[in-house]
C-alpha cells in the first residue's frame, strides 16, 4: 500500500510523518451535484421527483408464504403502500397480487424490481393509467332511516346485504373515488363499521396484465383442448 516514501534500511522501516497532503479546504471541488435520490442534477434546478400513485400487478406461484414475503418486502424497504390484495387466478398454481403504491419514480422501479427478485414471483408489471381498477366496501350504518339509506345505496349502484331494525349493511363496488364518495354519503346516517378490500386491477382491453400471461394462457388452453376418452 505504501508509496515510495519509505526507505528500507536492512529490514528496518524509517517512517516519516504520517498522512499528509492538501487539507479539505485546499482541494478542488467538482461542480455538479446529485439529489437525495442519487440522480445527477443541474445545480440551478434542484428538482426531486414527486411521488405518484400507481398500481402494480404481480403474478406469483400459489404457495404458502408468498404473500408474507411480498408484504414483508414492502414494509422492510419502507415502500409507501396504500393497499395489497391477493387471490387465485384461473390457473390454481398461480395467484395475482395487486399493490397500490405511492412513490417517486425511482421508488416505483425499486418496488417492481425487488418483487421480481422473490423466487416465487413469476412476473411483475406496473399498470397503465387506463387500467380497470375496482374496490369493494361493506358499510354498516344505523338503521333509523331505512328509506334514505336505500336511496343512497341506489345512487351508488350498491346492494343491501342485510337490513334490521338497528343496522343496515350495504355493499358498494367501484373505483377508489366512488368508494370514497359513497363512504362520505353514508356518514350522515352514522357509520358503525366498514371494511374495504383494497384495489384489484387488470389491464384494459386485449392487453395482458403482465408479460408472461398470454403464453401461460395458451399453454393452459392447450391442456383444455386435449381430447378425453369420454367422447
Amino acid at each position: 500500500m505504501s508509496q515510495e516514501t519509505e526507505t528500507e534500511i536492512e529490514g528496518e522501516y524509517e517512517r516519516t510523518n504520517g498522512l499528509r497532503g492538501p487539507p479539505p479546504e485546499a482541494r478542488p471541488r467538482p461542480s455538479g451535484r446529485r439529489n437525495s435520490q442519487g440522480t445527477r442534477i443541474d445545480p440551478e434546478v434542484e428538482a426531486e421527483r414527486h411521488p405518484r400513485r400507481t398500481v402494480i400487478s404481480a403474478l406469483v406461484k400459489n404457495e404458502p408464504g408468498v404473500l408474507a414475503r411480498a408484504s414483508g418486502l414492502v414494509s422492510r424497504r419502507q415502500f409507501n403502500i396504500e393497499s395489497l390484495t391477493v387471490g387465485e387466478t384461473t390457473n390454481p398454481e398461480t395467484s395475482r397480487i395487486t399493490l397500490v403504491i405511492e412513490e417517486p419514480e425511482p421508488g416505483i422501479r425499486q418496488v417492481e424490481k425487488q418483487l421480481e427478485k422473490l423466487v416465487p414471483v413469476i412476473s411483475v408489471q406496473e399498470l397503465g393509467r387506463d387500467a380497470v381498477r375496482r374496490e369493494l366496501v361493506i358499510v354498516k350504518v344505523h338503521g333509523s332511516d331505512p328509506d334514505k339509506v336505500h336511496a343512497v345505496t341506489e345512487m351508488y349502484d350498491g346492494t343491501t346485504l342485510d337490513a334490521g331494525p338497528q343496522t343496515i349493511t350495504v355493499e358498494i363496488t367501484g373505483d377508489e373515488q366512488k368508494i370514497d364518495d359513497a363512504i362520505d354519503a353514508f356518514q350522515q346516517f352514522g357509520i358503525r363499521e366498514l371494511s374495504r378490500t383494497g384495489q384489484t386491477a387488470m389491464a384494459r382491453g386485449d392487453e395482458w396484465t403482465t408479460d408472461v400471461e398470454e403464453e401461460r394462457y395458451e399453454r393452459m388452453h392447450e391442456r383444455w383442448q386435449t381430447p378425453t376418452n369420454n367422447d
Partner: protein
Amino acid sequence: MSERVTAPVEETDDAERTVETGAESVIAALEGAGVETCFGVQGGAIMPVYDALYDSDIHHVTMAHEQGAAHAADAYGIVSGEPGVCFATSGPGATNLVTGIADASMDSDPMIALTGQVPTAFVGNDAFQETDTTGITAPITKTNYFATDSDTVGDTVGEAFALSGTGRPGPTVVDLPKDVTNGATDRAPGEARTPDTYDPQMEADDEAIEAAARTLEAAEKPVILAGGGVIKGDATEQLRAFATEYEIPVVTTMPALGSFPEDHELAMEMAGMHGTGYANMAITHCDTMLAVGCRFDDRLTGGVETFAPDAQILHVDIDPAEISKNITADVAAIGDAATVLEQLDAELQHAPDAREWREQCQTWKEEYPMDYAAPEDELLRPEFVVETMDEATPDETIVTTGVGQHQMWACQYWTYRHPRTWVSSHGLGTMGYGLPSAIGAKLAAPDRDVVCFEGDGSFLMTCQELAVAVHENLDITVAVLNNSSVGMVRQWQDAFFEGRHSASQYPWVPAFDKLAEAFGACGFSVTEYNEVAETVEAALEYDGPSVIDFHIDPESNVYPMVPSGGDNGQFALSEDQL
C-alpha cells in the same frame, strides 16, 4: 460464479447412492452437488441429518457455536466460489445462525444453511425449541424453504444449493422438520437445479453496450469502480485486461480488494469512508464511472449528493434491482461481470483520451500517500504490524478480519493482488467474523497461508472457535490488534461525542496469548517494535493455530476518513479536519 452446479458423475459401481430416509436424501443431494466440507452444531431436531452424515465422505467440522458455523461456511464459499454449507438444530441453533446468514446476505456470498425443525405436527404449537426459522430468515435469504415431504426434500436441498450459487449469489435456508428427515423414502434426489422462475440475464443488451462504449470513448476522466461482483463473477482477468488495454484507473470497493492488483500503476485502491485519499479524489472528480458489480453502499458513496457529481454512471450488474437503487445510472448493462466486460471490449473502438487524467491520478497518489509515523521509542503502531505480516507471508496469503479499526488497517496497509484472498464482513459489519472465517478459508484452501486480523473486542465474540482450529489442526495465524477498547467506537466518540467514552473501553480483556494456550493453540504477546518481525516469523512457523496479542497504541485511529454522509472529496486526514 460458475453456472455448473452439478457434480461430475463418477463412473463407479456405487455412483447411485441408495436412500432410505429423507435425511439420507438431504445428504445425497449435498454429495451430488459436490460438497466436500460442511460446518455445524448438533441438536435434537437435526439429529436424523447428522445420523445420515455419519456414513458420508463429507468432512463435517463441529464448531463451538452456530454463528461460527455460519461464518466458516460463508468464508468457505468466498474462497472456493461454491456455496458453503452449515447445519444447526431448531430454535436456538437456527437463531444462532441468523447473524451469519445476514452477513452472507449483505455480502452476496454463496451459502446454504440447513436447520432442524420440530416435527410437522408440532409446528405452530410453540413446541420445545421451535422458532419460525423461515419467517425469521425471509428478509436475509435469497430464498428459503420449509420442507414438507420426505420424497422431495433432497430435491429441495439441491435447488437451494443451486440457487445460492447462481446469478447474484446469496444465502438460502432449508428448514427440515424432524418427521420429514426421519420419514422413509427411496427417492434419491435428482440433479441440483434452479427453479424455472429464476433466469438471471448473463449478456447485456446491445443498446446498453453501445451506449456505454460511446460514453467511455468520449470520456476525459474515466474510472473503473470495481465492486465485489467482479470477484464473485470471476471477472478479475477481464477487469485487468480491460483496464490495462484502455488505460483506465481502477478504484475498488472494500469487498473488491484483490480484484485488481494494488501494486499496479493504474490501481487507485479502495475508495469510501476509509479509502485512500487518491481513490476518493478519483471517484469525486471523474467524468465517467464504469461501475462493475457494486451496489453503491453508503460507506462507499458518502452523501449521494456529492458522490461523483460530474460523472456519467455506467452500471454493470447481474441484479437489475441494484440499478439506480442508490445512484441513478446513466447506462445500465444488466449481466454477468465477465461477459459484459468482454462485450464492452468488443464494442469499444478506441481508448478514451485520458493521459492528463492519468497524470492527475498519479499526482494524487504522491500528494496523499498512505503513511504513518512510527517512532521506535513510542507505542506500537498497528499499521506497522499489518505491513510486517504482509512482508513475511507469501503472495497469495488469505487475510480474514473481524470488524473495527483493525479491519480498516488490514484494508489500508496490506497489498492485495489476487481475488479471494480477502475475506471479511462488509455490509453487515459483524464483529467476531475473523476467526471462524479463517477456519472456513483454511479448509477451502489448505495450501494457502491464512492470516486473521482481529481486534480485542471483536475477537472475544467468537474466540471459542480456537478449540475447533486446534482440533482440526489448522495452520492459521491470528493477529489481535489489542487496544483494550472497541476502537472504532472510541474514535467516533472522540470525533463526534466530545470524547465521552461510553462503554467503549475494554480494560477487562484477557491475556490473549494465555487464552490461546488454554485452548491448546500457541500464544505470543508483543509490545515493542523490535519484537514484531521475529514473533511474526515464529507464529507463522508454528504448525497449527497461533495467536499474537499485539499491544498497540490505544490512541491509534483510522485515517483518511469521510464522516458518515460526507463528501468523499473532503476526506479528513486527521481528527482536526473532521
